């Protein structure tokens, strides 16, 4: 099983970042696609509580991801299960862990997506999804200093 870790330094204190990570309003702002509307965002940030996000991609396909909060330790750590639903078929479940650490001018965020498995491979090949990743790639390539 594979995992992916990314680190970001954010100029905001951990409690603000924690809210952005766990509340429906926050999730709707960053978890969805970069284009296309977010149709539904729900979040119940407590252990055993669920979150759900439904959005439309530009080609018109609708997608939904959801999961359960497994660990909630404000404003330091949140672990949640993560899966795609409402697509071709229910694919496997993976896990997202976000650790926040207060640093000089804000927060260091460590993001780990672990237990990555078939769902991602499957999704990345799905119609629409592949295209949107391509767009993402183009978007990032345009910005990245190469």
């Amino acid at each position, binding site marked *: 099983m594979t995992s*992916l870790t990314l680190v970001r330094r954010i100029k905001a204190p951990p409690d603000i970042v924690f809210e952005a990570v766990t509340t429906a309003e926050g999730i709707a702002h*960053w978890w969805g696609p970069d284009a296309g509307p977010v149709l539904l965002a729900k979040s119940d940030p407590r252990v055993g509580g669920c979150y759900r996000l439904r959005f439309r991609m530009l080609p018109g396909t609708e997608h939904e991801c959801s999961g359960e909060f497994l660990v909630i330790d404000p404003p330091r750590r949140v672990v949640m299960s993560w899966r795609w*639903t*409402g697509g071709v078929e229910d694919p496997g479940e993976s896990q997202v862990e976000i650790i926040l650490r207060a640093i000089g001018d804000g927060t260091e965020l460590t993001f780990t997506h672990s237990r990555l498995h078939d769902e991602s491979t499957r999704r*990345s090949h799905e119609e629409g999804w592949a295209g949107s990743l391509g767009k993402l790639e183009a978007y990032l390539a345009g910005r990245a200093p190469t």
Partner: protein
Amino acid sequence: MTCRNATAIPCEDADKLTTRSVWLILSLMENRQKNLDRTFAALGDPTRRAILSNLARHASASVSELAEPFAIKLPAVMKHLGVLDEAGLITRSKSGRVVTVRLRPGPMRDAMAWLRRHELFWSARLDRLTAYAERKELEARGQKE
């Protein structure tokens, strides 16, 4: 635990996909998946990674050359080479008594591309999370003043 079985909202676009095309997509992914699993499993061992980086430096090497830097016996090295071969990461060719090992970069490229896709996916989202949290912080400061 109820939400583990949360009902999926039917997706209109997904309904348009025929059973056959769904089957094709899934079987393609199933095969891809097995390959990726094998690649990552093969890469998950320090001795095997050392063998691969050795092969990356030299175009090819014999089994005994590859075994030289390690404090393990030849059969153990052979076993590692078997795993790498199974994963398609190396090829072995025999000429007389010498087995020559070469690197096959294809599967590793696939694995890297797969990881890269995930990285791109989440990087864009974390960039937006960063922007959003920083905006919230500015708003909070503005209110305090």
